């Protein structure tokens, strides 16, 4: 279908927080790949047992939306841009474990077909933006929603906060990986990454809360279903 260029320009074009090959060294990439494989396998195992029929169409739609949304870089301060990561949004709509599968699929296609994010670094990218984004974002959303008794505004606040913290956690992990690889010292890369992503995270928060508000207004039932996780297991027993 597409031309496979075997002599690409040497210069990578990292997008969002997608780490290109070369930014992290082999041991860090290998450890990240190891964690990612284990967690994605766990996600498959969990969803395999508990995936509801409703969740599958939503998973496909979420993957499509996140792929498209990640192409839209919005300008933030100082000649920098950012784009949605989407892990929190996916987790809110399909549950954290199914969302990990969605994010791993999107990031895998981006790396393999669109040369966005390295191949050796793909494990780290899935770990940072997929796994951690889904779990951290969902934990905060579910926690705030629980204390808000499921009322709309606490839920939206939880979606915003979850998305912001998910971006910050991803930026933190990315910085640690760069530091461990001796690519950039922690005291340099950590504040720089956290600083710029604290702004990108606000946009992530607004998009996530906005999308949740849209679903709340259009199809509230879709939000009552993130029961692919531990909640439903409890119900089975």
């Amino acid at each position: 279908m597409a031309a496979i260029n075997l002599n690409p320009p040497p210069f990578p074009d990292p997008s969002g927080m997608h780490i290109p090959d070369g930014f992290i060294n082999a041991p860090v990439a290998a450890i990240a790949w190891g964690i990612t494989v284990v967690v994605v396998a766990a996600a498959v195992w969990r969803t395999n047992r508990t995936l509801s029929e409703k969740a599958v169409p939503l998973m496909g739609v979420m993957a499509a939306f996140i792929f498209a949304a990640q192409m839209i870089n919005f300008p933030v301060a100082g000649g920098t841009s950012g784009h949605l990561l989407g892990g929190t949004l996916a987790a809110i709509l399909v549950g954290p474990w199914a969302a990990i599968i969605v994010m791993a699929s999107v990031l895998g296609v981006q790396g393999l077909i669109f040369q966005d994010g390295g191949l050796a670094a793909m494990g780290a990218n899935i770990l940072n933006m997929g796994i951690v984004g889904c779990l951290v974002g969902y934990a905060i959303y579910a926690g705030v929603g629980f204390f808000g008794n499921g009322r709309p505004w606490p839920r939206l606040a939880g979606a915003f906060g979850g998305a912001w913290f998910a971006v910050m956690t991803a930026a933190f992990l990315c910085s640690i990986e760069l530091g461990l690889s001796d690519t950039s010292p922690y005291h340099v890369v950590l504040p720089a990454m956290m600083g710029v992503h604290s702004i990108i995270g606000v946009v992530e928060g607004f998009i996530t809360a906005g999308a949740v508000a849209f679903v709340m207004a259009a199809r509230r039932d879709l939000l009552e279903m993130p029961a692919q996780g531990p909640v439903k297991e409890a119900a089975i027993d």
Partner: protein
Amino acid sequence: MIRQRYVMVVAVGLAIALLVALFSPLASSDPDGLEKVAEDKGFIDEGKGPPYEVIADYVFPWVDNEDVATILAGIVGVGMVAVIVFAVGFGLRAMSLRTPSSERGPPGA
């Protein structure tokens, strides 16, 4: 019927995704978070280019108009991830239906 109710969700969801993809040429071309930090902190040259390119940088090859090439790349990517995740999801769903009912959730839940 669950199936019919979800056809609409898929149709509207995919339409939104494709609509977003149509706006992709308007995306900011400024360096993004990690790229900017890498430039500012002097480690951008550590990056290695990919070993091969298919639709690199979200520009569909063989199309001269860059806006059209970007939109095409977006449509291809949207379709590709949707098909992959539908396939994985229905595969997992089929597997979960084969596990003993005592180990899975109530039908249609």
